[in-house]
């Protein structure tokens, strides 16, 4: 049981930026707050603060790299802003299915900002929603999804794939269709 409690405390520490901060200020008080057995309080409080910070930042970096791969065009479009927005959004422990969950969170944030007219470029919400829809179809099972877009995604995606970083473009409505007819059939995807 003692190991289970120690592992739970370590897992919380490594994935919670606030707890890392508290630990660096006062390791013993932080250890006591986590409900550990007396001998494990000592073990926990004796962890090296620099390596704890190092590990926590490694975990965050790993999450960033995974989401960059999951939403590659959105990353290409946003550049370094991608990491800044993502880090603010994924504070706290990873959710199950981490890279998909983190990517979905960022896509929702970008879509919400775009809807409020606060996104830059203004089409980034459409692009993130477009890429995030593919994640739904990475899982087994049949299904269909139809998404409407405000901007000409086909043109924007083509530009991003050829290495450009497009700026603002005029709105032009479009639609995307994702369709898997049976759980073993290929994904049909169309973008207008």
């Amino acid at each position, binding site marked *: 049981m003692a190991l*289970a409690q120690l592992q739970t405390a370590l897992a919380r520490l490594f994935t919670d930026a606030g707890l890392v901060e508290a630990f660096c200020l006062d390791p013993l008080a932080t250890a006591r707050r986590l409900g550990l057995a007396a001998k494990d309080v000592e073990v926990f409080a004796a962890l090296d603060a620099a390596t704890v910070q*190092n590990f926590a930042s490694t975990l965050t970096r*790993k999450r960033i*790299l995974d989401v960059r791969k999951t939403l590659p065009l959105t990353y290409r479009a946003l550049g370094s802003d991608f990491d800044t927005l993502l880090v603010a959004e994924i504070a706290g422990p990873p959710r199950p299915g981490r890279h998909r969950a983190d990517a979905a969170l960022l896509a929702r944030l970008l879509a919400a900002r775009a809807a409020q007219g606060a996104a830059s470029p203004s089409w980034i919400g459409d692009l993130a929603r477009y890429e995030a829809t593919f994640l739904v179809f990475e899982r087994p099972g049949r299904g269909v999804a139809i998404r409407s877009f405000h901007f000409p995604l086909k043109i924007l995606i083509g530009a991003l794939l050829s290495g450009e970083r497009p700026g603002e473009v005029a709105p032009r409505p479009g639609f995307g269709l994702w369709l898997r007819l049976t759980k073993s059939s290929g994904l049909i995807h169309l973008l207008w």
Partner: protein
Amino acid sequence: MSRPASLGSGLGYRPQFRAELFLHRSEVDFLEIIADHYFDASPEKLAELDMLAAHFSLVPHGLDLSLGSAEGVEERYVEKFAALIERSGAPYWSEHVCFTKAGGVSIGHLTALPYTQEALDVVARNVETVRKTIKTPLILENVTAVVVVPGFEMSEAEFVASACALTNCGWLCDVANLYANSVNHGPSLDESFEHWPWERLVQIHYAGGRWKNNFLIDSHDSATDEPVWALLERVAKRAGARNAILERDENLPAFPELLAEVARARGMLEGA
């Protein structure tokens, strides 16, 4: 423990180089696949798995079984792993001596265990549980310890050797992790070398790392460093290793650069 098949010098499969991999089929002896990528997978991903299995020997490598979790392993995860091993026709499979989740928190990374008897007992119990479902041989890998838990009762080498002995598993020796832990925390490799379970060695992992704040990170994002190559050669000679896998996850170079590393490792295996 009987040693599984001799497979040669291979690569950790990444979808980004799939096309070039098939163009250079004869230069890669076998592939290691990340098991977790094929759980709850789409038909496209399963088709990829079947295509790889038709052309290469595959070894599934797990990331999130969490064999060191005191709470035990997840039954559903083990079942998915078993199905993947059967579908891929793997001669053996591998996981890490570490924990990745506890108390409902998924850490999202391989986390070193305290080097204690209690942790060893947990690993042994979990491996026994897994074996009820998966009969294919399991080999255990040593991890990078970014944070070393104080209060240890034995060295890392003794801990990994005991874990392999208690479970009667083979050892997947990650030479990059051995090197990183020795330079980050000590003891020196010369001091610890003979304490590792060489008689149980089945496979080697090697990769490039990155220095940050005087700390060597096992980042898999660069070419393998020369000290790691030297260690790989030493290990191959010491233990007669027959299987090695290059791990490269980020900053993928032109494919011939990966092939050159695979060929260099093959030379070391054959020269042992």
